[in-house]
C-alpha cells in the first residue's frame, strides 16, 4: 500500500467521537503516539508508529503480536494523525478492508478538543460498527483520565453480540467488491 494509491475521499466517516481534555495538544499527541501511554488506556496495547506520512502503524499486544496494522496517512504533530487500520490479530476479521482512523487535536480555551473519526470505503453493517461504538468511548475516556489524573479507567475489550457473525458474513460475501 502506498500513499499515492490511497484515495482519502472514498472514505466516509461512520463514527465521530469528541472529548475535551485538560491538557495541551502536545500532551494529547504524545498520549496517542507513545506506547508508554497507549499501554495504560488502550486495553494494554502498545502503539508502534514510524513518525512520517507513509510510515507503518501498528498496535501490539503485550506479548508483541500484532493486533492492528496500517499505514500513516497523515503525520502533522500536534494537530492531525491519520492512519489506516486493519485488524490482523483476530482470525475472524479475515480480509475485511482497512478503515481510516483520524485524530484531530485542537486547542479549545484552557483544554484540548480531541476528535476521533472512523471512516470506511464500503457500506459497513451496523453490527460491525458496533465494535468500535462499544470500545472507542471507553478508550477515549480512559485516555482523558490518564492525562488528567494519571490513572486509566477500566476498558473492557470485548465484541458486542452479533459482531462475529456480521464479520463472517461480510468476509464471505465481500460487499466492498460490488
Amino acid at each position, binding site marked *: 500500500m502506498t500513499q499515492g494509491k490511497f484515495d482519502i475521499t472514498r472514505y466516509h*466517516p461512520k463514527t*465521530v*467521537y*469528541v*472529548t*475535551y481534555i485538560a491538557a495541551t495538544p502536545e500532551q494529547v499527541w504524545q498520549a496517542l503516539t507513545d506506547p508508554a501511554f497507549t499501554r495504560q488506556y488502550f486495553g494494554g496495547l502498545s502503539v508502534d508508529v514510524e513518525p512520517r506520512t507513509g510510515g507503518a502503524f501498528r498496535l501490539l499486544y503485550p506479548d508483541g503480536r500484532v493486533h492492528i496494522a496500517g499505514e500513516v496517512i497523515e503525520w502533522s504533530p500536534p494537530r492531525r494523525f491519520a492512519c489506516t487500520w486493519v485488524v490482523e490479530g483476530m482470525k475472524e476479521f479475515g480480509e475485511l478492508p482497512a478503515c481510516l482512523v483520524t485524530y484531530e487535536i485542537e486547542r479549545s480555551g484552557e483544554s484540548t478538543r480531541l*476528535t476521533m473519526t472512523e471512516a470506511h470505503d464500503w457500506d459497513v453493517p451496523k453490527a460491525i460498527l458496533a465494535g468500535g461504538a462499544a470500545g472507542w*468511548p471507553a478508550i477515549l475516556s480512559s485516555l482523558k483520565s490518564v492525562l488528567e489524573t494519571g490513572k486509566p*479507567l*477500566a476498558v473492557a475489550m470485548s465484541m458486542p453480540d452479533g459482531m462475529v457473525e456480521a464479520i463472517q458474513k461480510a468476509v464471505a460475501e465481500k460487499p466492498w467488491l460490488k
Partner: protein
Amino acid sequence: MDAVFRALADETRRTLLDRLRAEGGQTLSDLCVRLAMTRQAVSKHLAILEDANLVATVKRGREKLHYLNPVPIHEIADRWIGKFERGRLDALADLKKALEEK
C-alpha cells in the same frame, strides 16, 4: 456535565440522539423527517446537543453531518459506576432484556 443533563432533559433531544444512534451522519433535513417541528426548532435542539458535546459534526461539502457522541455519557457512567459494578449491571440489564423479550 450540567450542559449534558440539561441537554438530555428534553424528549425531542433524546429522540434526536436515538435517531443518530440508529444512523450516524445525518443532515438537518434527514433529521427533520417525521418530526412535527420546524427546521429552525430542530436546528436549535441540535445546537444544544452540540454544545453539550453529545452530537459531533463533520462538514462534507455544503452539508453538515451529525453523529451521536456518547463520550460524555460514558464519563458520567464512569463517575458513578465503578469497575466492578459494571459487570453486575450488564448482567442485570441482560436479564431484564431476556425477560421482557419473552
